[in-house]
């Protein structure tokens, strides 16, 4: 059934239904009397009509095509696809959390507020920051929030000239995108071959028009920027602020802290570092932490603690305002809180060490079989520069597609942009030595196939329901919606 490929519209039969709606016991008004004529559809609405078993089978079969951390190894670099413990789900499922309504009075939600207050304190301690907002719904939303805080800070001081954000060329694409959305102009600076900030480029870019610098550390090559203290000094000296993109936080948990490196604003991705579900219905969560001098700018409401109770404070005149409805993705906060408590400080530190060890182990085992870009010890992830051999007929994309045939989710490819043919591997701490060894064997096998049987790579994937997609055609002439064909439509 893995080849099941029907759309729900294709199994539809007129008149079939999964549920019988009771006859209305209020008077039935014609729709034209409720909705203005200009807003009404002119054509009939094409909805699928199926029975309940058909409906359940359809979506169950589709769900079986899913690949996730519960089904296999998912070494997607820069995404930290660690295992999501089921204990997190149990805690988030408690009715005291799951059945809360966001508009309940705070007297009735003291437990939830306490959790948010404590989680903020834990995240502050982990990052060496002073205060957190839990509102942002994902990493890029956190970036936007952090940048808006930086902007509000400069403007509150009457410093209107700071309209630019510096972003290194190795940054995640979200960094310049978020800065642009926040109304800044982007100044891109060069990285060194090790993906570190080029200090001369930085110095040249700094000035009284710079609002701040966005940085990931370890950087996108999985290498720690050794000049971070000097970078922070230079940026601060020029009157700018330092923004820490927490994408790679998993590498440094319990080892060092962005706050200690000199960062003023950080965001974490709870769906990366703190084991909450990642993508595909997550939802995400991107809390933002700040140093004390930026606390007045945090979004409202802020959870505050008095002697006897927790409360929500809206009275913050310098706040940038709300960035999300209510209080963020609360169910995700419960999961991250559960993870932190169940790991403990020692556990988080150990997780980070294992994440680095696992990445280093794979890197060491693959370095004779693929092009190495930065020949040095990595942190939680590393980047290969594609297959060896100038004459290889196979590309990084072919390697990634071939991995699908062997049951693995491919690594991140062609990122970071500073590495040609990049293959970016991040195993996380979750995996056993056996899983790592199996993956290494397959990666070596694929590198050999590239020489002995390149067609196997070029044709891949052959075992998945959808084979190699024609990406050019898909991008140039995409079919974005289903339309009835004459065979399935009565009107046609």
């Amino acid at each position: 059934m893995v080849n099941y490929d029907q759309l729900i519209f294709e199994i539809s039969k007129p008149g079939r239904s999964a549920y019988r709606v009771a006859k209305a016991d209020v008077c039935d008004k014609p729709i034209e009397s409720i909705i203005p004529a200009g807003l009404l559809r002119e054509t009939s609405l094409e909805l699928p009509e199926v029975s309940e078993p058909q409906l359940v089978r359809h979506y169950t079969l589709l769900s079986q095509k899913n690949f996730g951390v519960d089904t296999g190894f998912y070494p997607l670099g820069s995404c930290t696809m660690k295992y999501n413990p089921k204990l997190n789900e149990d805690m988030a499922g408690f009715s005291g959390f799951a059945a809360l309504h966001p508009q309940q009075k705070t007297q009735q939600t003291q437990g939830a507020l306490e959790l948010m207050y404590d989680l903020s304190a834990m995240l502050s301690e982990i990052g060496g920051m002073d205060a957190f907002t839990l509102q942002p719904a994902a990493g890029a939303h956190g970036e936007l929030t952090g940048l808006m805080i930086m902007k509000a800070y400069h403007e509150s001081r009457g410093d209107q000239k700071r309209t630019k954000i510096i972003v290194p060329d190795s940054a995640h694409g979200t960094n310049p995108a978020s800065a642009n959305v926040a109304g800044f102009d982007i100044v891109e600076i060069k990285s060194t071959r090790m993906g570190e900030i080029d200090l001369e480029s930085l110095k040249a870019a700094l000035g009284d028009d710079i609002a701040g610098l966005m940085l990931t550390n370890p950087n996108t090559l999985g290498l720690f920027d050794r000049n971070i203290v000097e970078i922070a000094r230079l940026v601060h000296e020029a009157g700018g602020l330092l923004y820490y993109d927490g994408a790679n936080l998993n590498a440094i948990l319990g080892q060092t802290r962005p706050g200690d490196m000199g960062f003023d604003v950080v965001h974490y991705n709870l769906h990366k570092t703190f084991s909450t579900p990642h993508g595909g219905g997550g939802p995400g969560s991107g809390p933002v932490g700040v140093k004390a001098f930026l606390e007045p700018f945090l979004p409202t409401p802020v959870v505050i603690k008095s002697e006897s109770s927790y409360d929500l404070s809206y009275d913050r005149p310098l706040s940038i305002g709300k960035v999300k409805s209510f209080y963020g993705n609360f169910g995700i906060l419960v999961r991250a809180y559960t993870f932190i408590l169940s790991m403990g400080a020692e556990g988080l530190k150990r997780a980070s060490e294992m994440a680095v060890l696992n990445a280093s182990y794979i890197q060491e085992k693959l370095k004779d079989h693929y092009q190495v870009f930065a020949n040095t010890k990595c942190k939680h992830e590393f980047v290969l520069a594609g297959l060896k051999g100038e004459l290889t007929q196979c590309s990084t994309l072919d390697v990634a597609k071939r991995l699908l045939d062997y049951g693995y989710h491919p690594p991140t490819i062609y990122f970071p942009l500073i590495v040609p043919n990049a293959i970016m591997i991040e195993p996380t701490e979750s995996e056993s030595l056996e899983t790592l060894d199996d993956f290494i064997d397959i990666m070596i096998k694929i590198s050999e196939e590239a020489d002995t049987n390149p067609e196997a790579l070029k044709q891949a994937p052959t075992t998945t329901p959808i084979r190699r997609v024609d990406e050019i055609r898909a991008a140039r002439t995409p079919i974005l919606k289903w339309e009835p064909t004459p065979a399935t439509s009565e009107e046609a």
Partner: protein
Amino acid sequence: MKTVEGLYYSKDHEWLKIEGDTGIIGISDHAQHSLGDIVYVEVPEEDDHFDAGDSFGTIESVKAASDLLMPVGGTVLEVNESLEDEPGSVNSAPYESWIIKIKFDDVSELEALLDAAGYTAFCEEEA
């Protein structure tokens, strides 16, 4: 890598052809080759004005999206509507597939641009 004699080239890999007061702008063969298969070209509106170095649109390939940068300052006279349906023509005929026509601001800005031989040398240096 192909170049065409008589065109001006920017270090951002745009070409500029002068016809009277009008400048015609596209991207070089080197640029289309590095980008790979082009799937979308976002063009500005007529009468928009841009300075030299400003982004006047974006070009998307299956690999990446890149800014299109003005080789000289000017006001948009005409955009190549056919690229909406045929973005791939930038790959197959980069020097025929112009993107915008402009009325340029200042003829002296041409001095900052390269000729075909200079551009070829620049690309070789960069590689």
